[in-house]
């Protein structure tokens, strides 16, 4: 590749000329046949399960007090609660698992005389519709936070001039008999792109690409 010397040379060796032309033409074939440089493959990512975006609460809030479909009054006439050890009276409420802090007794919360209602400090009844007042008896600070919107779920409109806001009550998320929030199955982890995953797996000891312990 002389820069300027053999100006006079007007002839090119056939072999070199052929090689140059052949190289470019071969390249044209390579391009037309799309022989190199394919894009990366794709994974099938499962379709989103609708439950991942389901906005309903983890529990259904009941609107009336029933047990196995029957109203409380069907058994509890409301005059006097059952006396003695409740376990000897039958097995109706046996599958209720009570795991609510120090609470051992139904009547800590349920009203003795009006079984469809709940009991306030002074024995006055609290209606199901105001259930948060019952919880507030012990969980005062949380009740305060709930009122301020700090605790619990709110949905609808943050700007109440434009629409209504719904504050979910305690029992929409907490089972009153076992109030700690139950574990949920996590929605799928982020999909690791095939572009990066292949390499990540190749690296020694990379059992968990995209994260680690």
């Amino acid at each position: 590749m002389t820069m300027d010397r053999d100006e006079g040379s007007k002839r090119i060796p056939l072999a070199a000329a052929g090689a140059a032309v052949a190289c470019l033409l071969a390249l044209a074939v390579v391009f037309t046949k799309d022989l190199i440089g394919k894009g990366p493959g794709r994974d099938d990512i499962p379709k989103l399960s609708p439950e991942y975006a389901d906005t309903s609460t983890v529990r259904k809030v009941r609107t009336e007090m029933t047990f196995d479909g029957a109203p409380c009054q069907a058994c509890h006439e409301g005059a006097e609660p059952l006396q003695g050890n409740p376990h000897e009276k039958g097995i109706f409420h046996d599958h209720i698992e009570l795991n609510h802090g120090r609470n051992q007794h139904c009547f800590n919360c349920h009203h003795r005389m009006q079984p469809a209602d709940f009991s306030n400090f002074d024995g006055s009844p609290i209606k199901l519709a105001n259930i948060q007042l019952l919880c507030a008896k012990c969980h005062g600070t949380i009740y305060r936070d709930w009122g301020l919107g700090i605790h619990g779920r709110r949905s609808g409109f943050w700007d109440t001039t434009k629409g209504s806001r719904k504050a979910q009550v305690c029992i929409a998320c907490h089972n009153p008999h076992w109030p700690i929030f139950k574990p949920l199955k996590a929605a799928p982890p982020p999909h690791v792109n095939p572009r990066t995953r292949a390499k990540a797996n190749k690296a020694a000891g990379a059992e968990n690409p995209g994260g680690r312990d």
Partner: protein
Amino acid sequence: MTQAIKDYVVFVGRCARKTLDGDWRYYLWMTALTAVSLLGLNAYCKQLVAGLTVTGMSDQVSWGLYIANFTFLVGMAAAAVMLVVPVYVYKDETLHDVVIFGELLAVAVIVMCLLFVTVDLGRPDRFWHMIPGIGRFNWPISMLSWDVIVLNGYLALNAQISGYLVYMVYLKRKPASIWYIPFVFIAMFWAISIHTVTAFLYVGLGGRPFWNSAIVAPRFLASAFTAGPGFLILTLQVIRRLSSYKVTDKALFMLRDIVQVSMIINVFLLLCELFKEFYTDSAHVASAKYLFFGLHGHYGLVPWIWTAMVLDSAALALLVLPFSRRLRYLSLACALAIAGIWIEKGMGMVVPAFIPSPLGEIVEYSPTLNEWLICAGIWAFGMLLYTTLLKMTIPVLTGQLTPQKSAPMSIESETVWHGNFRDTA
């Protein structure tokens, strides 16, 4: 005025004609470069159609080989200043006749830089949003907007200087200082600024501790002043072997001094950075740890950086030892330094800052074949452009290409062109 433009166009046309002259080796060289450029073009077309999904980049490692090459090449372009300063500031004539090759290299390399930025864009069709006045330029806030200005400005400056000086040699006229001296001095500062701004691109990001270090700009400059003149040492040897242009050994050895000192500073600054990272051993060391030793079972960049370290050390050893007073070893040292710095500044500087991600995820990066092809294509195109520029200018500089209707040549103008631009300083 129109006549002047017409004359200039004729001059460029005649120079361009020269690029068709050559023997079979020249044609094979140019064909090979064209072929690789086309491979890159083809790969880029695929990227245009499919998107950047054909690269190895991800949301976590959002910059890769393109920006790595860009960073390295900005340095190569800036390196022309190391030839200009001795000649124009210290009036040292040794490098006088080779300055032009540094400037032409800057032109070719800046074009490569711009290409690398373009191929990295997700929406190249919207490039005009970046044009000041027409688009919506976030200047002076965005460092990238500064980069657009300084790179294009530097391209214009070097094109002006080399274009003007070569034309004057062609016309056998003494260059008028007003038409190039101011540009030369602006270009000096501009050269420093292009690489500083490129460094600031990284330094300014508080969320990436690996980059957020004040030493990055000096490191960039030191490595640039190694790689750039190193590349010129190699080029000049080719030029003097294949053309009748005279390049003295003295010039090559002066470049050696520049490369030598720059390399020492480069390695020193690197060690400073490494000390800060590893001695402090704070949470911010994660990226450096990943780079040098691997992190939590991920070792993607470890081979890269140790290759760079070996190349850098070998180059440094060769450069400081008297071996490199022999051209063969000097060339070897330059080649090693260029390769080492290319890795250190590219894959070793750009990629580790993304690993681990700001959220602690480790997503590794390695370039895909398509990405490599695009990079190779741009390099080949850059070399093609540089060869073309050399091919256009050397016949002028050696006096083989003169105005057709040669005016009666005065003794005075004879001396002017014979020394190329010796009169100028």
